[in-house]
C-alpha cells in the first residue's frame, strides 16, 4: 500500500502536474458547474437503439477536467475497485494530452471505454470524490471523462497496444469471455503466456454482448477491445462449453497449465408464483439475449422476439432498467417497472433510472406480483399485484418490504420480463465435483490470489461474487492473473530444483 501511495505522490510532484495545478485557483475550480452529458432527446431515443449518451466534446472534457483539484489525498482512487490513477488521467485531459490520458487508464483498466459507460460511479469513484465528501457538491464527472479519453483514443486510430513480453510457451485457459476473463487474458498475454479463451456462446464478451443493450454500450466498442486482445496474441474459441465440449482434464492433457473460471452468474431466477410459465413471460436474460445477441429486433435476422404493447418488468436493477427501456424501443405503449421497494432503493445505476424516467417508463414501486393470468392460448394478459410498505431494515441495511394485506389489484399486461436476479452458472461446478463451492453455488477462492480449492484453477467475477459489476469482475481478473502467474512461476521453480 505504502508503495502505491509513494508512487502517487511522486507522480503528483512531476513538473507538468504542478504546472497544471497552479494554472487555475482552487476556488475558481470549485465554482464551476459539473458538465452535462449531451444526450439524444428522450422521445427520439426511446424509438431507436443508438447510444443515449453522445459523449463530451473536447472543450467540455477539458472544462470538466479543470474542476478536479488534483487532491494531495485523492480519495476518489480508493473508490475505484481497480485503483485507476484518477487525477493523473484527468490532468492529462486538462492538458489536452488525450492519448496520454488514455494510456494512464490502460495501466490499470483494460476496458476504460466500457467502464466509463457502465460503472456505477455514484457509489464508486465519484462517491469518494472530495467534492462529495467535503464540499457537498456534484462530484467530478470521472466516468464521463474516462469514456472521453478512451473514445478519443479509439477514434484517433492510434490505440496503444500494450507491450507483450517474449512468448514463454506456457498455455493457460480462460473459461468465459466476460469482463473478468478478458481482464485475465489481457494481463497473461502481456506477460508472455499462450492464452486461449473458451466461450460457450457464438460471440465473445459475456454480459457486455448479450446483456447490456446497444443504447448503453455499443457492441462495436467491445469488439475493438477484443480485436486488441487478438492482436496481442490471445486466441478465442467460441462454441466451446468447458465441461462438455472438453473438460478441464482434457485441457490439462492438451498442455494447459492453469485455468481461470469467469463463467458468470448466468442462471436466471424466477419468483415461482402461479402462472409464471405462461407464454410471453420471459427472463430478462432471454429477452435481452434475443434482442442484443440474436438481433431479433432486426427483421433481417431469423430469431423472433415478442414486442408487446403493455410490458411489465419485474425488478429494480440494471437488468430491469435495460429490459424495460428495450421494450419501449421495441414499440411498447406502456412499459412499467414493478419493484417491491422504493425508487431510492433500486440497485440500478442512478443515470439509468433518470434516463428511464425521461423515456416515459412507468415506475410502480412498492408493488410485487403475486399471480399471472392468461388467455385461452396461454398468452399472459393480466397480473395480480400486491402493494408493499417498508418495514425494519434487513441484513442488507435496506428497509424490508412488507406486503399490505388486502391491497391486491390487477394490471393488464401482454408481456412480462422477470429481472429479479441470477444465480451462478452451474456448468463448471457441476463438471468439477472436486471444486469447493458455497451453498449458493459460487466458487470459493482465496481473496488475494483468487485460487480455488483446485490448485491450478482460479476464479473471479460473478461466478465468485454471485452477481456484481463489470469493474469488480475485471478487478478480480487482474488479481487472478497475478495469482496464476506466481503459481506457475513457483511450479516452474520447483521443477528446476
Amino acid at each position, binding site marked *: 500500500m505504502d508503495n502505491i501511495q509513494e508512487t502517487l505522490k511522486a507522480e503528483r510532484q512531476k513538473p507538468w502536474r504542478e504546472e497544471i495545478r497552479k494554472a487555475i485557483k482552487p476556488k475558481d475550480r470549485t465554482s464551476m458547474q459539473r458538465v452535462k452529458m449531451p444526450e439524444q432527446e428522450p422521445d427520439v431515443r426511446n424509438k431507436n437503439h443508438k447510444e443515449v449518451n453522445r459523449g463530451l466534446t473536447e472543450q467540455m472534457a477539458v472544462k470538466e477536467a479543470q474542476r478536479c483539484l488534483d487532491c494531495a489525498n485523492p480519495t476518489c482512487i480508493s473508490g475505484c475497485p481497480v485503483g485507476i490513477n484518477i487525477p493523473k488521467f484527468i490532468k492529462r485531459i486538462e492538458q489536452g494530452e488525450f492519448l496520454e490520458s488514455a494510456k494512464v487508464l490502460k495501466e490499470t483498466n483494460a476496458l476504460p471505454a466500457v467502464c466509463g459507460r457502465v460503472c456505477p460511479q455514484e457509489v464508486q469513484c465519484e462517491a469518494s470524490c472530495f467534492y462529495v465528501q467535503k464540499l457537498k457538491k456534484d462530484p467530478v464527472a470521472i466516468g464521463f471523462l474516462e469514456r472521453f479519453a478512451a473514445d478519443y483514443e479509439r477514434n484517433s486510430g492510434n490505440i496503444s497496444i500494450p507491450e507483450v513480453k517474449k512468448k514463454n510457451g506456457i498455455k493457460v485457459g480462460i473459461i468465459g469471455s466476460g469482463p473478468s476473463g478478458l481482464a485475465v487474458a489481457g494481463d497473461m498475454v502481456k506477460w508472455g503466456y499462450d492464452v486461449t479463451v473458451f466461450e460457450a*456462446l457464438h460471440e465473445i464478451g459475456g454480459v457486455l454482448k448479450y446483456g447490456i443493450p446497444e443504447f448503453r454500450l455499443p457492441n462495436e466498442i467491445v469488439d475493438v477491445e477484443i480485436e486488441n486482445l487478438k492482436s496481442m496474441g490471445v486466441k478465442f474459441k467460441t462454441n466451446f462449453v468447458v465441461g*462438455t*465440449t472438453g473438460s478441464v482434464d482434457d485441457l490439462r492433457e492438451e498442455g494447459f497449465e492453469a485455468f481461470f473460471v469467469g463463467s458468470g452468474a448466468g442462471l*436466471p431466477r*424466477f419468483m415461482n408464483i402461479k402462472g409464471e410459465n405462461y407464454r410471453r413471460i420471459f427472463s430478462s436474460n*432471454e429477452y435481452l439475449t434475443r434482442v442484443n445477441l440474436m438481433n431479433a429486433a432486426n427483421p433481417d*435476422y431469423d430469431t423472433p422476439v415478442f414486442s408487446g404493447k403493455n410490458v411489465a418488468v419485474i425488478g429494480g436493477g440494471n437488468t430491469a432498467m435495460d429490459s424495460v427501456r428495450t421494450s419501449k424501443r421495441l414499440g411498447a405503449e406502456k412499459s412499467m417497472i414493478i419493484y417491491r421497494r422504493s425508487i431510492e432503493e433500486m440497485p440500478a445505476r442512478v443515470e439509468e433510472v433518470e434516463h428511464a424516467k425521461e423515456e416515459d417508463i412507468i415506475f410502480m414501486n412498492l408493488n410485487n406480483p403475486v399471480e399471472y393470468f392468461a388467455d385461452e*392460448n*396461454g398468452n399472459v394478459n393480466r397480473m395480480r399485484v400486491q402493494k408493499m410498505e417498508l418495514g425494519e431494515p434487513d441484513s442488507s441495511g435496506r428497509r424490508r418490504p412488507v406486503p399490505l394485506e388486502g391491497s391486491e389489484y390487477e394490471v393488464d399486461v401482454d408481456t412480462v420480463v422477470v429481472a429479479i436476479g441470477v444465480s451462478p452458472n452451474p456448468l463448471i461446478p457441476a463438471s468439477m465435483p472436486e471444486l469447493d463451492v458455497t451453498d449458493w453455488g459460487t466458487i470459493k477462492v482465496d481473496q488475494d490470489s483468487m485460487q480455488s480449492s483446485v490448485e491450478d484453477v482460479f476464479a473471479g467475477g460473478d461466478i465468485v461474487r454471485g452477481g456484481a459489476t463489470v469493474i469488480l469482475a475485471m478487478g478480480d481478473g487482474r488479481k487472478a492473473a497475478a495469482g496464476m502467474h506466481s503459481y506457475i512461476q513457483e511450479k516452474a521453480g520447483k521443477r528446476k530444483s
Partner: protein
Amino acid sequence: MNKIIEKEQLNNNVVKLIIDAPRIAEKRKAGHFVIVKIDDKGERIPLTIADADAKKGTITLVIQKVGVTSHKLSLMEEGDILTDVVGPLGNATEIENEGTVLCAGGGVGIAPLLPIARAFKEAGNRVVSVLAARNKDLIILEEEMKECSDELIIMTDDGSYGKQGLVTHGMEEILDKEKVNLAVTIGPAIMMKFASQTTKKYNVPTIASLNTIMVDGTGMCGACRVTVDGKTKFVCVDGPEFDAHKIDFDEMIMRLGAYQEQERKDYENYLETL
C-alpha cells in the same frame, strides 16, 4: 465453422446431415444434443445428435422441415459450412441393464430415439420399439431401428404402412403381452403426453426427451423451462430427459406455440422468396 460432409434426404420433409465436428463426436453420448446456427443472421436451434463417428470426427443430425431455419438447413448441401455448432449439450441418457426397454418414437423423434435404443441394446436389454407417424413416408430410420430392436412395430395414422393406429396402440400391444421395465418416448409433445399416460396405466417407469424452444442451451435464458413434479426445470441443463409421469405436458405444449403466429408468417414470407 463446421462443414457438411454428407447429405441424405430421408423423406420429403426430413434430411440427414453428417457434419464435421471432431470434439463433439468424441464426447457425445446417447441423449446429447447440439445447438446449430447456420449463418451470421441465423437463429440458434437445438438438434439431437442422432449418431456420431469419433474416428471420422463427424456427427449425424436428422432434421425435419417445420419452419425457416430447419427449411434452410434442409436446403444446404455437402461442402456447405454451418457458422456455429456447439455441444454436446444436455445430460446423456442413463443407460443400464433394466431388462426390457420399450422405445416409442414419433415422426422425427425417431432420430433422437435411435442412439438411445442402440445404447440400451448394447447394455444387454431386450429392446422393443414402436415407431409411429402420420403415413408411410414419414417413418424414418426403420432399418437402423430394426437392427437394434428385438421387436419392432410400425404404426401409421392412415394405415399406409405397418398397422393402422396411434403410437399408443402399438405400445399397448407390447405392454399387454410382456413385462416392460422401462419405457422411453420421443416425438411431438402431444404424442409423448399420450404415450406417458399409457405407460402410467401399466405402472412402467418412463422417460421422455423434451424438445422445448431454446435460445442458448446453456441454462442462461430460461426459454426452455418446463414444470416437472411441480417445479420449474430447464430442459437444456436439467434435461432433456425427465420422468414422463411428472411432466406438465399441457404447459409444455402451450409454451411451444409461443412464437407460432410470428413464425408462421416468417415461414410464409420465406417460402415466397424461394
